[in-house]
Each structure stands twice: as structure tokens, then as C-alpha cells.
């Protein structure tokens, strides 16, 4: 990463302190899709950028990069979060699951992936990895039971193609199968 100095523009908050204590890379251990990775990370690297730029896991998408669209959603210790707003250093020791880690070792798709295909729950597909990770988090949380509750609990994932109806159906399908177990 180039050490670019941003141009000073009107209105930037002045740096109140010195920047003489800039650190080296920080050692971080993450278990990513079941594989332990010992990494050295600059503290300002987000989990999203680490996954995509350093580990070449391009399944997780960068949309808005500000926590507004949900396309970067991954599961950290089983919970869905926006990887664009998580600094990788602060997730040291965590287990991260991305869309690449959902299928079984034999390549069998995760039931949520199957349901998205079954219900045609996407068009362009850019938001899909985030939608699927978010939906898996939703099922695990157990707070959504009706289509209205699914919609509310999925409000952090935007689909600009507007595949919402089928996304809700896909998730509802998985929820129904889960509760029938």
C-alpha cells in the first residue's frame, strides 16, 4: 500500500498529536474458512481489504465501503458483520467465514446457496455473497419467522437489481426447512 498523503483540504480536522509512533505491521491470527492464517497486518487495514487484497478472497464484495449496503457481510465467530467497518487487527483470533467457505468439503453447496439458486434470488449477483452470509446469520440468530421479519432483519443488505421478493422467499424456504428438522 503506497503511503499517500492526502491533499489538505478546507475543513480537515487538524492532527492534534504527532505521528512519530507509526507502527510496524501487527501480527494477527485469523481462522478463515477453517484455515488458520498467521498474518501481519497494518492497523488501518479493514477485514474486507485484508480478505480481498491480501488473501485474494474476492467473493466478499466492496460496495459502499461504509456499512450502508451489506455487500461485504461476512460471519465473524458465527455473527454477521460489515467487514468494511471492522479493522482486521481488532478481530485478531476470530473465525471468519466468507462465501468461499460455505460449501462443504465435497463441494456441496450450503442450503442457503441452494435456496438462492432455487428461487432465482439475484440478478447481477454483486450483492449475493453478502446477502447469503447475512441470511445465514439471520437463521442462526433466530429472530425472524415471518416474511415481514425477514425483510426487517435483512434491511442491511441492499439489492439494486431489486431481487428482494425472491431473496425473502429463499430465506423463508431455509427457515421452514430448519424449523421442520
Amino acid at each position: 500500500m503506497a503511503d499517500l498523503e492526502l491533499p489538505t483540504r478546507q475543513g480537515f480536522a487538524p492532527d492534534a498529536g504527532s505521528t512519530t509512533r507509526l507502527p510496524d505491521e501487527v501480527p494477527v491470527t485469523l481462522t478463515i474458512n477453517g484455515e488458520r492464517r498467521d498474518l501481519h497486518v497494518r492497523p488501518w487495514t479493514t477485514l474486507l481489504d485484508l480478505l480481498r487484497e491480501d488473501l485474494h478472497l474476492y467473493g466478499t464484495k466492496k460496495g459502499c465501503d461504509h456499512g450502508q449496503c451489506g455487500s461485504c457481510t461476512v460471519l465473524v465467530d458465527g455473527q454477521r458483520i460489515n467487514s468494511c467497518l471492522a479493522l482486521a487487527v481488532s478481530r485478531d483470533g476470530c473465525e471468519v467465514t466468507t462465501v468461499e467457505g460455505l460449501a462443504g468439503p465435497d463441494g456441496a453447496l450450503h442450503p442457503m446457496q441452494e435456496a438462492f439458486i432455487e428461487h432465482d434470488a439475484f440478478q447481477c449477483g454483486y450483492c449475493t455473497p453478502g446477502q447469503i452470509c447475512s441470511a445465514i446469520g439471520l437463521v442462526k440468530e433466530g429472530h425472524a419467522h415471518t416474511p415481514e421479519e425477514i425483510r426487517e432483519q435483512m434491511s442491511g443488505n441492499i439489492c439494486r437489481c431489486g431481487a428482494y421478493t425472491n431473496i425473502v422467499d429463499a430465506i423463508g424456504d431455509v427457515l421452514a426447512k430448519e424449523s421442520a428438522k
Partner: protein
Amino acid sequence: MNRFSYARPGSVADAIREVGSSPAAKILAGGTNLVDLMKYNVERPTHLVDVSRLPGLKEITETEGGGLRIGALVTNTAAAYDPRVQERYPLLSSTILAGATAQLRNAATTGGNLMQRTRCYYFYDASTPCNKRVPGSGCPALHGVNRIHAILGTSDKCIATHPSDMAVAMAALEAVVRVSGPRGERGIPIAEFHRLPGDTPERDTNLGADEVITAVDLPEPRFTTHYTYLKLRDRLSYAFALVSVAAALEMDGGTVGEARIALGGVAHKPWRVPEAEAMLKGKVPDRAAFERVAERILQGAKGHGENDFKVELARRAIVRALSQAAAGTPQSQTDKRIQ
């Protein structure tokens, strides 16, 4: 994002030392607001103190008198779905679930939620002046794009609002923010935690620069049946409040015993007017009484152009929220139809 050094202290005492080590040090917990602001170059800490692993701050514990202490690192999700919170403070649980998204609530913490900064467009845009971001540079919102801005408690320096939902319920419940610093621990009543902008809009709260939030104490449970959080916004989910009302009533037969009303989206802090609440004491909860209360709460409310509508919206929202609370029919945060 600017470059910074990073520390992960192992105790609250170490965290206090770290954050006091530089005037440009910042505390990182869930990161959902701070990291966002750093990407916009609005926050540019030179030293980041990651408190997210501090022991003992992730728990919800019992306090004397049946109250609860919510650790500063309890996530918004964990607080909202905790069975004790749901049972004893349903207003707080409902209010937290009205905010943000599932992903954000999973990461965002109780302490961080209180410390989140305004979503004023000008504050967020580092290419424009902003008295909150750069003191003395001016406030373009006063005569600019101000649809989301404050109508109460403003100054000629700043008309930003505090964006938290959670804090609005905490204001109604009279929570106490526990903080720890070099001079020891203290409790700050939530009403005194956030500040009005006045001449120092750069200061959002009365938390000391070297103090760390450790918990929020909720007093003895009350208002468990007659309450509501009514949030009005531009879309039905994942949007900040244009106006929100937390209303809580203690009913004494057919009349009101005690009333609490806190507003969000209208000021630099959750807005409460105890004199207005007292007007309901001993009164039959009817529309006429609610309208008088709304009138009193909104005394002096003033729009700045695009947000003029908020005065009338707030008046109606207060009346509607009090009606919901009196009827014991809290607003659903899933089915957004307003009854």
C-alpha cells in the same frame, strides 16, 4: 484513512493510560462509526486504543433494586435480545431494534452507541466548513441543506442532531453512564452526558478526554407495560430518525402516575422536558392532555428551512406515541404501520 499506531490494552486502567497518552488518541470498540468517520477523514486519530477485548465489560449484571448494569462492550444485539432487558426494559429493547441493521447491531457496542457522532452532511464532508469538525470554520447547515437537522436547543454555531435511538430510551429511563478515568470512577446521568452545541459544538459529551465508559446503569425497572418507541424516518428500516419519541407512562387506575417523554432526531441530545411530563400527573390520558404536553415540549422549537416540517411532525408524533403508550400498544419495530 490516516496512519495511526494501535494499542490493545488488557485492563481499563491501561486503556485510560493509553487514551490519555495523546490528545489525538481515540477509543475503538465496535468501530461501526469511528472507522466510517476515519474513511471520510473526519476522524484522524494518531493512536487507536482498541478496548474491544477488555475483560468484564461484555456482561449484563444485576444491580441493587432489580436494576441492570449493561457493560460498555455489550453489543446492541446482545442488549436488545437479553431476556432480562426485554422483560424489565422493553422500551430499551424495542428502541435498540429500531436502529441500524442486524450487522451493525452485532458489532456496535453500548458505549460506542452513546459516542457516535452526528450524521450532519456537512460534518461528514471534509471539503466543507463545520464548527463541530473544525471549530470556528462555520456552519453551512444553518442556511443550507438541513432537512435532518435540529429544531430544539440549537445555537448559531451548530444545528446537528444526535443520531442514537438507544440514548433516547435511556434518557426516558434515566440511565446513568458509568465512566472511569485517572481520577477514579463516576456516574453521569444520561441527561447530562450529551451536550447542547452552544459555542463548543466540537464537544458532543461531557466525557473527559481521558475517561472510558465502562457501563450504563438502568435503575429499578418501571414502565414495563405502557411504553412505546415511535420512530419516523424516510424509509421504513435502516434510516436515522427525522423525529422519534420514547414515551413511558406509569398508570394509576384511570389516570397517569408518572410520564417520561424523550425525543430523538430533534436536538444535539435526547430531548426531555420534565415540566411537560409533570403536566400529565394525575390526568386522564386523553388527546387534549397529550396535545398540551406536546405544545409545552416544543416550546421554542424552530426550523431552519428544509426542516420546518419537523415541528409539526414532532407535535403529532408526541401525541401519537403517548396514545400508544397509554393504550399499552407499543409500536412494532417490524410491522411499521402506525396504530
